[in-house]
C-alpha cells in the first residue's frame, strides 16, 4: 500500500501497443505533477497516473468535484489522455473518476475483467466513434412544412380543388395542423438519420440531450453516436452529407463530431 498516493485510471489498451504509444509525446496527466504509467496484466495494460489522496480521497474528492472549473479541467485532461491512445490503438475509455488505492487493485481488476475488456478491444479495433447532432430551425421548418409534410401537401391539393367554403375550412385545418406536422416531420427526420447512418456503421446509440441548446442552426433536437469502421468513414460521411442536403429544406442541420474515443460503445 502506498500511503498518500492512489492511481487514477484512464483507459485500457492492448499491452503490445501500450508502451510504444505512451512514448509518443505523452500528454499531461490528470495532475501535472505526475506522469502517465502503465499497469499490466497478461495482454492488457491500463493507463494510469498517480494522484494524491489529499485531493482524490473519498471525502476530499467529493468536495473538489463541486468546483466546476477544477472538475472541467480534470475531465479535459482525462479526455486528452484517452484521445492520445484511441487515435493510435484500440482503446477502452473508462468513465471519469475511477481510482485505485494501489497497483494490486488495478491488476486484480484487469484479471477479473479480462474477458470483457479483451472482447471490447477486439470489437473496437479499427473503428471510431462519430457523434451526430441534429438541429432544427423551427421557423424554416414551419415555413416549409406544407411542402415537406405529405399530409399537408395532400390537404393543400384538396383545398385547391374544393369549393370556396370547403377550401376555407381546409385552410384553417392546415394552419392548426402545421405545428403538429412540424413535430412529426422532425421525428421522422431523426429516425431517418439514425437508420441510414446506422446502416453505414456497426453500432448506433441515441443519446440524451443535456440541455436545450439553441445555436445559429436552431435547436438541438437529437443526438446520436455511431461506431464506424475507419475504412468506411468516407461512405458514412457521404450519407450524412446526402441527408443534410435532403433535410435542409425542412430547416434541419446535421453536425458531425469526432472522431471520439468509443465512449458509447465501451461495453460488450
Amino acid at each position, binding site marked *: 500500500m502506498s500511503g498518500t498516493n492512489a492511481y487514477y*485510471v484512464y483507459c485500457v489498451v492492448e499491452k503490445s501497443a501500450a508502451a510504444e504509444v505512451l512514448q*509518443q*509525446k505523452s*500528454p*499531461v496527466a490528470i495532475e501535472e505533477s505526475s506522469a502517465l504509467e502503465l499497469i499490466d496484466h497478461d495482454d492488457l495494460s491500463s493507463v494510469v497516473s498517480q494522484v494524491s489522496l489529499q485531493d*482524490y*480521497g*473519498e471525502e476530499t474528492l*467529493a468536495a473538489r*468535484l*463541486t*468546483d*466546476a*472549473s477544477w*472538475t*472541467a*479541467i480534470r*475531465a*479535459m*485532461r482525462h*479526455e*486528452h489522455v484517452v*484521445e*492520445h491512445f484511441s*487515435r*493510435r490503438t484500440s482503446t477502452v*475509455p*473508462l*468513465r*471519469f*473518476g*475511477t*481510482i*485505485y488505492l494501489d497497483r494490486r*487493485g488495478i491488476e486484480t*481488476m484487469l484479471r477479473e475483467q479480462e474477458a470483457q475488456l479483451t472482447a*471490447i478491444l477486439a470489437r473496437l479495433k479499427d473503428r471510431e466513434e462519430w*457523434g451526430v447532432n441534429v438541429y432544427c430551425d423551427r421557423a424554416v421548418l414551419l415555413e416549409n412544412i406544407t411542402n415537406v409534410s405529405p399530409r399537408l401537401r395532400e390537404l393543400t391539393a384538396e383545398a385547391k380543388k374544393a369549393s370556396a367554403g370547403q377550401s376555407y375550412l381546409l385552410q384553417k385545418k392546415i394552419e392548426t395542423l402545421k405545428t403538429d406536422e412540424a413535430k412529426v416531420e422532425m421525428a421522422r427526420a431523426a429516425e431517418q438519420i439514425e437508420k441510414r447512418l446506422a446502416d453505414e456503421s456497426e453500432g448506433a446509440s441515441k443519446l440524451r440531450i*443535456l*440541455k436545450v*441548446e439553441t*445555436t445559429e*442552426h436552431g435547436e438541438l433536437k437529437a443526438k446520436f453516436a455511431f461506431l464506424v469502421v*475507419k475504412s468506411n468513414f468516407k461512405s458514412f460521411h457521404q450519407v450524412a*452529407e446526402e441527408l*443534410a*442536403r435532403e*433535410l435542409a429544406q425542412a430547416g434541419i*442541420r*446535421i*453536425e*458531425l*463530431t*469526432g*472522431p*471520439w*474515443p468509443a*465512449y458509447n460503445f*465501451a*461495453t460488450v
Partner: protein
Amino acid sequence: MSSPFEQVMIGSDVEFAQDAELSLLETLDHVLSRGLVITGEITISVADIDLIFVGLNVLVSSVETAHEVLRERGRREIGDIESGQ
C-alpha cells in the same frame, strides 16, 4: 454558413474557437457520463456526476472559462493530430 453540413473535428483549434462552448459541453458529457464503468476503490457516483453537470452548465456559459478549460485538451503538439488519417 451556407453549407448544410458541418463537421467539427476534434483537435482542430479553428473549430474550437468557433464553437468553444458547445464542444466543451459535448466533451464533458462524453467523459463524465459515458465510458466503461469499472468499480474502483474510489469511484464517482452517478449522483455526483449529475451534481457536477449543474455546475458545469454554469461554467460553460462563460466563454472565457470555456476556452481556458478547452486548452487543457488542446495541449497537443503540432503534428500529433489525425496521424491516422
